[in-house]
Structures are given as structure tokens and as C-alpha cells.
């Protein structure tokens, strides 16, 4: 073919696009949105990960080990002992916490400069020695309110040297805040400005006072060689743990990564919907141009050239849409960053992520996925275009009947794919990735089944309603049935898009409800006291207050176990009152209460494949000891595993220790109880008191914050689904313009035509909505039972929120009707003679 001929081909494609702007733009939009989602999520994830790593690094520096303690931290005298008795000099104490200045959170990082000197760590780009011996920093020790920031961080926060601030610390997320006045005495250059963002450096004494941590530090940071590790291990007082800082960061990172994979998977689902849209659009464009293509073939255009033409078109769409999608993804990613960050497991310090990291890999991923998915989706229609018969145009009905012939094949294929998905789900192979592959197989299989299901349903409907249906009704049903190759595709696309919203919605709702139950079970009682000095005497005094039926003492410590490091929850209540139990034997509960064994949190048991009756070795105050596992309880705290033991057992193996938390149970006879407890503790600023209901609210608030990103993704998925419905149905209806013209010519009124079209779209919307429910529920099952389980070891109860299901139905119908309006309007207004002239 010569050059002008090639131009002719391209020109024809261009003209087609010009004549059918709706279809082109909607599928274009589909790719744009899909790419945007993937890029945005990936960028936000990368930025959050980088900020996370930096935060860990800027606070911890280049240390090899940390000594950490229980719920209150490490008693400071342990640091003294470490240095004066053991002579471990490459060590430094650390305290950090969040303070609020002008509604902005900052990490207050307390350090002892003289200890830091021996650690020589590179922290946040400061030369340790430089930091330690800047004269302004030594002012730390003489004045009790000074802070230092990096120059870049100060600039970012709008602070300058000499400024004083009112800083508030929050005792617990909801109780009274305590005010301190801080003065910025110096700003220092840092080679890594990002890492110092939002960090206020101060003396450890200042941090301890401002953060209300008298007597305790967060951790002892260490650089140890192997010999010293053994030495420290031998010396370590009960309740303290020596952790390898890499392992510690790894477990946090792992958690975060699992969450991010989930987010990325959700964005890929959106891209899948976009792929269906593209397939739909390209297929329609090929179908519509079969005549033209046939003529081209008759004129001597080769199959390869036709193939290239169709694919070229798709590629062009894909490339442009991907580029725009990447641009929009960049913008969206920036605004999603906060939400993604919120989903990172809470550390002791606040994560400030104001710098958005533009990772080229995210952009490439978006581009490759965008164009790749487009080309893949267009491959089948392109191949079909090459089949266009050269001389005369193929009757469409021929296609459709051909299509109906392969319907059983499609359905069987669908069933097989779904079966493969189920099998993959049952086996634990490939972990998380396997779970996502299985999910994809299930969705793909379901899509293939859709036309078959629709055919059966439509036949049934037509038979059952034969009498009662009037002509337009019958016509609309038959229309759908007769063009199943397109309607089926459209309905499948819609169903998948809607199912994503259903699946995620059900999953989040189930999770949230499970967390509520867990909170109720695990945080019983009415008033919580935390702090220093929660001894037996105080407990007795509190028990004397009117309205107090029970005072329970508990503490969280950490323990080295044969399963790795874990948190240890020690309580004096019977198991059933302390934990939301998952697996247990009734008789074992009494054994637990007598201190004859331990309980494991579900994630810990699941990750280590521990079951009831197994034994776990704990490093006690009296050496290593095996304990039988008497129960497994639900736990949704996003950190290391949790082990529950009864106080009797703790006292036996570790010795008595002051409680970290007192829980007051009220008999509801004293409505003033909280006020009385508060005033009782007035003279004791070391103890924080708050109503238990608030813990619940705060935990749920944290949960909601963590899942906020999911809700946003769901809304985006809904928008894509909406566009999907709109574009698929509109394309379908616009394509049938001539049929409607014929009907007009046969005497149907414009109003009847409109009704016919709207009824047709409504039925398709209804199909999509109904089909999305089983698919969505199946997705939620996979998300709940497989993905979350494999990511976090969390299992959760299934809840069926009717709102989510209703939402999907309403969404389907509204979108379907909206999609019908323009084509209906257009078809009703069309001049039949002119429309038919083309025929």
C-alpha cells in the first residue's frame, strides 16, 4: 500500500473517532482513571514508605540494637546500670513523642548529647559530634525549655531562632493536654532535610518533662558487638527486651507493605474495569466499521494492515490516556499521601510526610499498565477486524448467532477459571500473591459466565412474562438477548466495577464491626488509669469509692519467646473477661486462670502455625520456660504478636510488678464516679484517668483513619464503575440508532422509543447490579478470609451491610438510566428517513 493509502486508512479512523466522540472519550476516560488510580496509589505508597524509613532512621540512627520495655518504657535506672555496671558505652537513651504546636504535630526527640557522643551515630544527616557540641545545644542542660531544629525543618514550619512556642502534649489521644513552653535556640544545617522534618531536638530531661515520662525512657539505643550482645542478654532485667533494630523495623515494614499491596491490588482492580471498558469500546468500533473495513479489504488492504490500524488506534488511545492518567495520578497521589500515611502502624513518633516522592518506577508502571492493558483489550477485536470479509459486509446477526454458538464454550471456560480460583484459594501456596491471582481468576471467570447467565435469565423472563409484557417490554428484553455479545460484555464490566465497591465495602464494614466486638471484649470496665504508682494500695483505695464493683490491674510488657519477640499482657481477670476468645476448650480457661498456661493472639498463632495444646518457650525472670497454649484470642493491634498470661503466672516466673493499668468496673450506682476518681487522683499528676468508652472511640477513630484510604479508593472505583456503565450502554444504544429509526418509520412514537431505550438500559443496569452482589460478596470473602488473613493474620467476622448492597443497586440503576437519556433523546429526535438512508 502506498503512502496516500495509508493516510486514507488513518483518516478513516480519525473520522470515525470524530463521528463517535462519546464512545472515544468515555473509553479514553476509563483508561485515564485506571492509570490514575494505579499511579496515585503507587506514588503515595512509595512516599509513605520512604518517609517511614527516614523517620525510623532519623530517630534511631545507625544503631544495631535497642533495649525496649513494656507499656511505660524502660526505667531510666536500667540505663545507669548498663553504663556504670556493665560499662556498655556505645549506648544512648531515647525518648520521643508528639507535641502539638499551633495544631501541628511535631516529634519531640529527647537525647542525651553526652551519651550520643559515644554512639557517634549519623542521625538525620547531622554529624553527631556537631550536634552534640554545638554550644547552643549544650544550652540544653542549663535551660530547661530549649529545642533545636534543622534549618530546613524550621523554615518549613515557619519558625526562627528565638521563637517561643506553647507546645501541648496529649496524654492519651483524648485526655487533657498539658502545656509546655519551648524556645527554639538554634537551627542547624542537616545533609538530609527530609529526615529532620517535623523533629524538635531537645535534651532528654526536657523531653521527659514535656512528655510526662518521669522515670522512664522509650528505649536504650545501642551499638553492640556479638560479645556485648551476650553480656547484655545475661544482664537484662525482667520486663526489658533486647531487640535487633533491623528485625524491629522489618516487622513494622512488613505490616506496612502488606497494607500497601492491598491498596495497589485495589487500584489494579480499577484498571481491570478500565480494561473491560476499553475492550468494549474497541469491539464496538470494529463492529461499527466492519463495512468500511470490508471495503478496505476489497480495495486490497491486507489483514496485517487492518490489524495494525485497529491496534494502532488503541495504542494511540492507550498512550495518550496513560500520559494524562499519570499526570492526574501524580496530583491524586499527592492528596492521597496523608491517607496512606495514616494507615502506617503507629510508632512512638509522628510521621511527617510533606515531601512527595516522585518515583519514576510508579510512572513507568502506570504507563506500561495503561498502554499494555489497552493493547491487550484491543487484541481480540483487532483480530476480529482482520476477519472482515472483503466483498460484502457481514450481517451483524451472523456475528451474533456465531457468538451465541460459542456461549457454552464461554460459560464452561468461566466455570473452569472460577474453579481454578477456588482451588488456588484453598491452598496456601504463594501467600498473598496467590490470593490476588485467585481473586483475578474468580473475577475473570465470572465475567465469562455473565452472558450465559443473562441468556438464561432473559429466556426465563420472556417465557414467564410473555403474557403480561407489552410490546416495548418484550422488545427491550429481546434486544438485550439478541445482542448479548455487546450487552453481556457491558453488563459484565459494570458488574465487576460495582462488585469492587461491594467487596471492599463489605470487607471494611466487617472489619470495623469485628473490631467493635473485639474492643467490647478486650476493654471491659468503665474507667482506665495509666501511669506511675498504680500499686495495690491505690487499687484498694479506689475499690472503696462508691460505685466501684471491681478494680482490675494489668500491664503490658515485652517478652522474648520461641516465636520471637512479643508483647506480654498480664491481667488479673479470668480469660473470658480479658480476651475476645477465638479457640479454646472450656476446661482450659480455668487452667489459664490458675496460671497454668498462656493465650496467644491470633496473628501470632497464625503466623507461627501454633495451635491449642502446643507449647511456647518464654524467657522469664527465672530463665526459659515452656508454657502450654490454652487459648487463642482475636487481636487487631497492628504490631508484634500478643501473649496473654494471668497475673498468678507472671508473679510466679517474673515476680511481682507494679501494674501499668488499673481498670475500674462500675456497678452503675454512682453517676459521678468518673469525676470522683479524677478528683481522688488530683494530687497525682503521674496518673492519667479516662473513661473506657473513650478508648473505644479513639480506637475506632484510628481504625477509620487507617481505612480512610480504602473509602477513597472505593469512591474512585464507584466513579469508574459509573463511567463504565455510562460509556458501555451509551455506545451500545448509539450504535443501534438505525434500528430505532426503523421502528420510528414503522410507526412508533418518539415517547415509545424513549421508553424502549430507557427500559432496556434499566434492565441492563438491574442485571449488572444484581450480578455485582454475588461477585462482590465473593470478593469480600476472599479479601476477608484470604487476603487480610495472609497479610496480617487477622480473621474477622462477616457482616453484610445492607447499605453497601443497596448502594450498588442504586448506582447501577441511576448510571444505567443516565446512560440511556442521551441516546433515547437522540433516537427519539432522529429523522427516520435520514437515518435509514444510510441503510
Amino acid at each position, binding site marked *: 500500500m502506498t503512502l496516500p493509502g495509508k493516510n486514507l486508512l488513518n483518516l478513516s479512523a480519525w473520522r470515525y473517532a470524530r463521528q463517535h466522540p462519546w464512545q472515544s472519550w468515555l473509553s479514553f476516560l476509563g483508561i485515564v482513571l485506571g492509570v490514575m488510580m494505579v499511579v496515585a496509589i503507587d506514588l503515595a505508597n512509595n512516599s509513605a514508605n520512604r518517609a517511614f524509613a527516614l523517620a525510623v532512621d532519623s530517630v534511631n540512627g545507625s544503631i544495631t540494637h535497642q533495649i525496649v520495655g513494656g507499656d511505660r518504657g524502660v526505667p531510666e535506672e536500667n540505663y545507669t546500670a548498663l553504663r556504670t555496671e556493665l560499662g556498655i*558505652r556505645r549506648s544512648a537513651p531515647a525518648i520521643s513523642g508528639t507535641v502539638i504546636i499551633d495544631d501541628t504535630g511535631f516529634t519531640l526527640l529527647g537525647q542525651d548529647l553526652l551519651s550520643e557522643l559515644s554512639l557517634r551515630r549519623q542521625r538525620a544527616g547531622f554529624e553527631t559530634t556537631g550536634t552534640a557540641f554545638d554550644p547552643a545545644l549544650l544550652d540544653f*542542660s542549663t535551660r530547661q525549655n530549649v529545642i533545636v531544629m534543622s534549618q530546613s525543618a524550621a523554615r518549613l514550619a515557619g519558625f526562627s531562632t528565638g521563637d517561643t512556642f506553647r507546645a501541648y502534649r496529649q496524654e492519651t489521644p483524648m485526655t487533657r493536654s498539658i502545656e509546655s513552653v519551648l524556645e527554639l535556640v538554634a537551627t542547624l544545617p542537616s545533609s538530609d532535610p527530609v529526615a529532620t522534618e517535623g523533629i524538635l531536638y531537645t535534651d532528654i530531661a526536657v523531653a521527659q518533662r514535656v512528655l510526662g515520662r518521669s522515670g522512664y525512657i522509650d528505649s536504650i539505643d545501642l551499638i553492640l558487638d556479638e560479645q556485648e550482645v551476650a553480656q547484655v542478654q545475661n544482664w537484662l532485667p525482667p520486663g526489658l527486651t533486647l531487640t535487633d533494630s533491623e528485625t524491629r523495623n522489618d516487622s513494622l515494614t512488613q505490616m506496612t507493605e502488606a497494607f500497601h499491596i492491598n491498596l495497589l491490588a485495589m487500584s489494579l482492580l480499577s484498571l481491570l474495569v478500565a480494561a473491560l471498558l476499553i475492550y468494549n469500546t474497541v469491539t464496538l468500533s470494529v463492529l461499527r466499521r466492519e463495512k468500511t473495513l470490508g471495503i478496505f479489504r476489497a480495495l486490497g488492504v491486507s489483514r496485517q494492515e487492518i490489524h495494525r490500524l485497529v491496534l494502532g488506534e488503541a495504542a494511540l488511545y492507550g498512550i495518550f490516556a496513560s500520559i494524562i492518567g499519570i499526570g492526574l495520578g501524580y496530583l491524586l497521589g499527592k492528596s492521597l499521601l496523608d491517607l496512606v500515611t495514616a494507615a502506617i502502624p503507629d510508632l512512638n513518633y509522628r510521621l511527617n510526610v510533606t515531601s512527595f516522592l516522585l518515583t519514576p518506577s510508579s510512572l513507568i508502571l502506570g504507563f506500561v499498565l495503561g498502554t499494555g492493558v489497552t493493547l491487550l483489550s484491543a487484541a481480540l477485536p483487532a483480530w476480529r477486524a482482520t476477519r472482515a470479509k472483503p466483498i460484502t459486509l457481514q450481517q451483524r446477526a451472523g456475528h451474533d448467532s456465531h457468538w451465541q454458538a460459542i456461549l457454552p464454550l464461554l460459560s464452561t471456560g468461566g466455570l473452569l477459571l472460577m474453579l481454578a480460583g477456588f482451588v488456588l484459594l484453598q491452598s496456601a501456596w504463594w501467600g498473598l500473591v496467590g490470593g490476588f491471582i485467585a481473586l483475578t481468576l474468580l473475577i475473570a471467570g465470572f465475567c465469562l459466565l455473565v452472558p450465559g447467565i443473562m441468556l438464561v435469565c432473559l429466556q426465563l423472563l420472556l417465557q414467564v412474562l410473555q403474557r403480561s409484557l407489552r410490546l416495548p417490554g418484550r422488545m427491550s428484553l429481546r434486544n438485550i438477548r439478541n445482542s448479548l455479545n455487546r450487552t453481556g460484555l457491558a453488563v459484565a464490566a459494570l458488574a465487576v466495577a460495582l462488585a469492587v465497591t461491594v467487596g471492599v465495602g463489605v470487607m471494611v464494614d466487617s472489619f470495623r464491626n469485628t473490631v467493635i466486638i473485639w474492643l467490647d471484649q478486650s476493654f471491659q470496665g468503665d474507667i482506665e488509669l495509666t501511669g506511675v504508682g498504680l500499686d495495690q494500695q491505690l487499687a484498694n483505695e479506689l475499690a472503696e469509692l462508691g460505685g466501684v464493683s471491681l478494680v482490675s490491674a494489668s500491664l503490658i510488657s515485652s517478652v522474648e519467646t520461641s516465636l520471637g519477640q512479643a508483647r506480654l499482657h498480664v491481667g488479673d481477670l479470668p480469660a473470658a473477661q480479658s480476651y475476645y476468645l477465638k479457640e479454646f476448650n472450656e476446661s482450659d480457661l480455668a487452667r489459664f486462670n490458675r496460671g497454668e498456661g498462656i493465650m496467644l493472639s491470633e496473628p501470632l498463632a497464625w503466623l507461627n502455625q501454633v495451635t491449642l495444646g502446643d507449647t511456647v518457650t518464654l524467657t522469664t525472670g527465672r530463665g526459659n520456660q515452656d508454657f502450654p497454649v490454652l487459648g487463642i484470642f482475636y487481636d487487631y493491634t497492628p504490631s508484634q504478636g500478643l501473649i496473654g498470661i494471668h497475673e498468678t503466672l507472671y508473679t510466679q516466673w517474673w515476680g511481682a510488678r507494679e501494674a501499668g493499668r488499673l481498670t475500674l468496673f462500675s456497678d452503675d450506682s454512682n453517676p459521678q464516679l468518673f469525676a470522683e476518681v479524677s478528683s481522688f487522683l488530683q494530687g497525682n499528676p503521674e496518673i492519667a484517668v479516662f473513661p473506657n468508652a473513650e478508648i473505644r472511640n479513639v480506637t475506632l477513630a484510628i481504625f477509620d483513619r487507617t481505612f480512610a484510604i480504602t473509602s477513597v479508593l472505593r469512591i474512585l472505583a464507584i466513579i469508574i464503575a459509573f463511567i463504565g456503565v455510562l460509556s458501555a450502554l451509551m455506545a451500545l444504544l448509539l450504535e443501534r440508532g438505525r434500528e430505532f429509526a426503523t421502528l420510528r418509520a414503522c410507526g412508533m412514537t418518539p415517547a415509545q422509543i424513549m421508553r424502549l431505550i430507557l427500559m432496556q438500559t434499566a434492565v441492563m443496569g438491574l442485571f449488572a447490579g444484581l450480578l455485582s452482589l454475588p461477585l462482590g460478596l465473593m470478593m469480600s470473602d476472599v479479601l476477608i478470609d484470604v487476603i487480610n488473613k495472609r497479610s496480617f493474620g487477622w480473621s474477622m467476622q462477616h457482616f453484610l451491610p445492607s447499605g453497601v448492597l443497596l448502594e450498588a443497586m442504586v448506582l447501577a440503576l441511576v448510571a444505567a438510566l443516565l446512560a440511556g437519556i442521551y441516546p433515547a433523546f437522540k433516537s427519539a429526535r432522529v429523522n427516520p428517513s435520514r437515518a435509514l438512508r444510510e441503510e
Partner: protein
Amino acid sequence: MKRIICLLLLLNACTPALEEAGDEAVFSLDVGEALGGDNTAGYLRAEEPRVFSFPQDHGLHPGYRNEWWYLTGNLQNENGRRFGYQLTFFSTAIAPGSTSSSGWQSPRIWMAHAALSDITSGQHIALERFSRENPGLAGARLSPFRVWLENWSLSSNNDNAFPWQIELNDDSFSLDLQVSAAKEPVLQGIDGLSQKSPDPGNASYYYSLTRLNTSGSIRLNGESYDVSGLSWLDREWSTSVLADNQSGWDWFSLQFNDGQELMYYQLRDTQGNAHPSSAGNLTDLDAQQQYIQPEDISLQELSNWEAPNGVEYTTRWRMQYQEHDLIIAALLEDQFMNLSVPYWEGAVEVLDADTQELLGRGYLEMVRSP
């Protein structure tokens, strides 16, 4: 007289010039500035003689800015292997009147220097540590007596009584020594008030335990040596000492074989000449003292050694005092303390200038401006 500390300088907001030497950060300090009396408001000052009482005065004297416990000694094992050691605890108050403390908030910052000279192998090791006082990381207390910085300490196992233990552990060497005073404390200067420059108050309270019988063990390079010998403890507390025109000193603590001891410090002015406030003391067998003034004594520099920082230190001296005509010679040329405050401090032997007979041993400290 002892060197005061970089900390002083730092805390008084003079800006030290920080230099990188290898991976060690080194301060170059102007000692005169460090010991200057710019910011003394609120501190007690050594203005008048006081009554000393022991063991109370072995402990800390809050209210003054600086205080130190300064141990030096010459030891040898049964094969005649000779060692010199130094262990010093310096305390510097952070602010006047701040005696209250809690948690990590510390009224004082501590620095310790330690050194070991292995004369036979020619090795000299100098160590330095810093710490804040709280929570219990460093400090000085009585009943039982204990001065410590991390795992370096000088302490009594029997309330405040001798023998005292010296414990020092470091990767490079360890000391495990017992010291017992063979003489009563010697009050230096005029009844323990040691005037360092003409301004009233530019003085310290200063006493010494000039003869401490010492025994114990030294661990060095994986070997342990049982040693014995004599040590010397200097105790001084003050708020300011040097005048603007003073910049360093040469300090001698000599223990004669005949049972006498001689302490003399020669303060230097900024031109390097002896300052009239220089002073010393000769202690006889019964701890009776003779006050030594600059005009009573003659010091002659015989040979110098150049330290890596370019400063020349005199490692061979001639000292003439009354009937004594002495050669004071460093046992090692390089006993340079390359620390935050660079100075030379080392074991010396005292010889008769005429007969070269060994009359005693001692320690010499030289602080000089670059």
C-alpha cells in the same frame, strides 16, 4: 593546680572551634579562656582560707563551679616493669545555685581523663569520657565515699576509710588498684587557699594526698600485671582561677625516696614566662610543709619534645630549690594527652643533677598554648 576543662568553656558559651581529626572530634581550646573568670556570678568563690575537715572534704563542694579528683601514680611489677597512670574526675556546675535535680536534669557535667604509660614498651594510652550527673551516671558522694563516671570509679569499701579502690575498665586497658594514704592531707597554698592570680577570688581550695601506697593490677593488651607503688591525689575546687594574662602552667608532683614530697606549679603568662602567682610546697615526713614562692625556686628547661599539634613540651628539667639540685626527666617523651584539652601529662623520674642518682619519682603536667 590542675587543668580545667573544655566543658567550662562550652558551658560559658565561648565557641570552641571544632575540628575533625580522623573520626575523632577534637576541640582546640584556649585554656586561659577556659579558666578565665568571666561568668562567676552566683557561684561561691575561694576568697578566704577555710577550715578543712576530713573525710567530708573528700566529697563534693556544691556551689563552686569546678572541682576535681586527680590521681597520678608510678607503679611497677615484680619484674621491674614500670607503669605510670592517671585517673581524673572533673566536675563542672551547669549553673550557679542549681543544686536541685531530678530525672536527667543534672546540676553538673562530668569529665574523666585516664592514661596509662607502659614505660617498658613505650606505649602511652589516653582516654576521655563525658557524662551528665543524673540519673546516677556520674557523681561524688560520701558514706560510702565514691567518685565515679560510668564504670570508672574511686571508692571506699568501708564507709569513707582507706583503702580506696580505683576501678577503671576500658577496651584498651583496665586498672584495679587499692590506695591508702600514708600521710595526712596536705593543705596547699596558704592553709589550703591556693591563689592563682592576683584578683581576689581567682583561687582554689586545694589539698593533696601526697603519698598513697598503691597495689593492685593493671590489664594491658590482654596481659595482667600485679603492681605496686605510690600514687598522689590532688583535690581542688574553685570557680575561677586564671587571669587574662595567664595561659598555661607546668606542674610538678614529686615523691622522694626519702619520704618527702614536692609540689610546684609554674603558671605561665601569655608570653610563656613564669607568672608571679606560681607556688608550691615541700612536705616532710610528718606532713609538715614549707611554702615555696617563685623567687625560692629555679626552673630550667633542658630539652623539648614536639607534640603532633606542634606545641613544644619540656621533657627534661633542672629544678633548684634550697639544697636540692634536681633533674626531672620524663620516662617517655610522648605522654601527650591528645584529648579535648590537649596537654602533656606523664610519669617522670627525679635525679640528682650531680650524681644522676635516682632520688624519687613523680608526675609532670604541662599545659601550653599552641
